[in-house]
């Protein structure tokens, strides 16, 4: 009989601690959302490298919230401890409160809590930038430095959205984090959000990466609405070849100037340029390959999974998330429009030598935004090849959004 009783007690205990008893309705909704995101990542291939870990992290944390639990301490009086265990312990520190001695017994945090420290402390996004730098050819930008202006103009979305978010009722720090979605740069968005509004990390990361995947759908209507067919047909002159020395000097010059002007942008731009000098120097091929492959992949797994794991039901299922998703789209649209309008201006000043479509690539989202510029340009003029011209503003956009992030951090932090 005693065995049976123990058996029932054990079963009851397992049921009590199981997810069926501990999860709320919000967790189940989030599980459904995460499965939908997994579907989008696999079937529709929406930024699968990032969206899949995010979605799965979201699934894990809503099934077992303790995965993200922070470490804590439990206090037990020394006398109680000795009564229970029959002897004193030297493993735990003793603290005294109101004349009573307590053991400080630690309980460790969940697995994802520890991995999440890389996001919280701003470590992963710069490491991702290291890999991006090692993969990026800044040649088109060096050949045509005016592209930098388009990369700057496309940051308009960040600042306009910041105002929009404040008007809707977000706090200034939250508005800064939401605005950076307009930079169309995932690591930058995560970096800024982890510093300004860590509680919004889940919704902002999902919005940023989803919209980056939707660039081919979001941008073309705006590009066509703001340009005439004649402008879209403009064929640009071939870019000049860039020497190796110029490419090697680029990261050094950029980081010196950026770090001196906007020190808060140094972690992102610094690592971007470090990765780039690895690539361009040609003497550390092994390191360059590691930065763009193994390291980047490992960090992407940690970053995606733990960012997804911040999206618990209680945080994600709020009206704020809807606001973030709407504002994110607005930010993308404004950034694209800013780039195109400035492209038109440059077209006027250069007497028709610049195709305004390349301005849309200034929103970062490398290389998707440049591909979209190429595609829309080719629709208007099948013999036109804008890809390399659009890569200039595209990589300038990465530097531009990192600088904009530095500005936001220096004002709002």
């Amino acid at each position: 009989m005693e065995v049976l009783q123990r058996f029932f007690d054990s079963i009851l205990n397992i049921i009590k601690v199981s997810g069926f008893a501990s999860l709320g309705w919000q967790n189940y909704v989030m599980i459904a959302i995460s499965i939908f995101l997994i579907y989008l990542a696999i079937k529709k291939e929406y930024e699968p490298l990032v969206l899949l870990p995010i979605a799965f992290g979201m699934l894990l944390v809503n099934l077992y919230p303790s995965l993200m639990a922070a470490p804590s301490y439990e206090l037990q009086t020394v006398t109680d401890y000795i009564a229970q265990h029959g002897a004193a312990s030297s493993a735990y520190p003793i603290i005294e409160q109101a004349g009573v001695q307590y053991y400080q017994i630690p309980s460790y945090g969940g697995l994802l809590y520890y991995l999440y420290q890389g996001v919280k402390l701003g470590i992963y996004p710069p490491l991702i930038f290291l890999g991006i730098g090692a993969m990026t050819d800044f040649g088109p930008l060096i050949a045509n430095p005016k592209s930098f202006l388009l990369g700057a103009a496309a940051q308009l979305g960040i600042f306009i959205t910041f105002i929009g978010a404040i008007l809707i009722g977000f706090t200034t720090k939250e508005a800064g984090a939401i605005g950076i979605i307009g930079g169309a740069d995932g690591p930058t968005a995560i970096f800024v959000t982890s510093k300004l509004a860590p509680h919004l990390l889940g919704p902002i990361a999902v919005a940023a990466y989803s919209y980056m995947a939707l660039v081919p759908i979001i941008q073309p209507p705006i590009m066509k609405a703001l340009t005439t067919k004649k402008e879209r047909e403009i064929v640009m002159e071939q870019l000049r070849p860039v020497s190796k020395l110029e490419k090697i000097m680029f990261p050094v010059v950029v980081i010196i100037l950026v770090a001196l002007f906007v020190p808060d942008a140094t972690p992102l731009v610094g690592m971007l340029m470090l990765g780039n000098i690895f690539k361009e120097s040609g003497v550390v091929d092994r390191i360059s390959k590691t930065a763009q492959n193994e390291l980047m992949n490992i960090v992407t797994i940690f970053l995606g999974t733990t960012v997804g794991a911040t999206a618990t039901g209680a945080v994600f299922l709020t009206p704020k998330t809807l606001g973030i998703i709407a504002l994110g789209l607005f930010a993308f649209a404004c950034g694209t429009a800013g780039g195109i309008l400035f492209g038109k201006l440059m077209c006027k000043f250069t007497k028709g030598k610049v195709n305004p479509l390349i301005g849309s690539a200034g929103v970062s989202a490398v290389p998707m935004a440049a591909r979209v510029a190429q595609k829309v340009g080719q629709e208007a003029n099948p013999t036109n090849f804008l890809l390399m011209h659009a890569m200039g503003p595209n990589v300038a956009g990465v530097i531009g959004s990192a600088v904009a992030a530095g500005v936001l951090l220096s004002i709002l932090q």
Partner: protein
Amino acid sequence: MDKFQLSVTVLLTGLVVVFVLLLVLIIAIKIYSTIVSKAQSKRENKKKAAIDALNKSKEPDLTVIENTSDAEADEGGISDEIIAVIAAAVSSMYPQSSYTVKTVKRAKNTRSAWSTAGLLESTRPF
């Protein structure tokens, strides 16, 4: 500072700083690109001038002696194609030096062509 003021401040500061910094970068890149391309074109011109001067001065600069028979054979016995191949082989062995092929002679066969190639391959790094 109220929210409206802060919004305008962020908008203005953000855009101005981003534009100014990127403008500074444009200027910096233009300056160093000009310096680099000028320096490189100067170096190339110097090289060209040196090669021209060398070619003009004395015709036979570097006498190339290649493997051929013990008896001195003039180029008349060898086709132009073979001479071109020998010149190309010499050029690939001594890429830095400028030379003119003056005579082609067969050297004494002390080592087979394969062992010479192997020797060159293993000593190239030094």
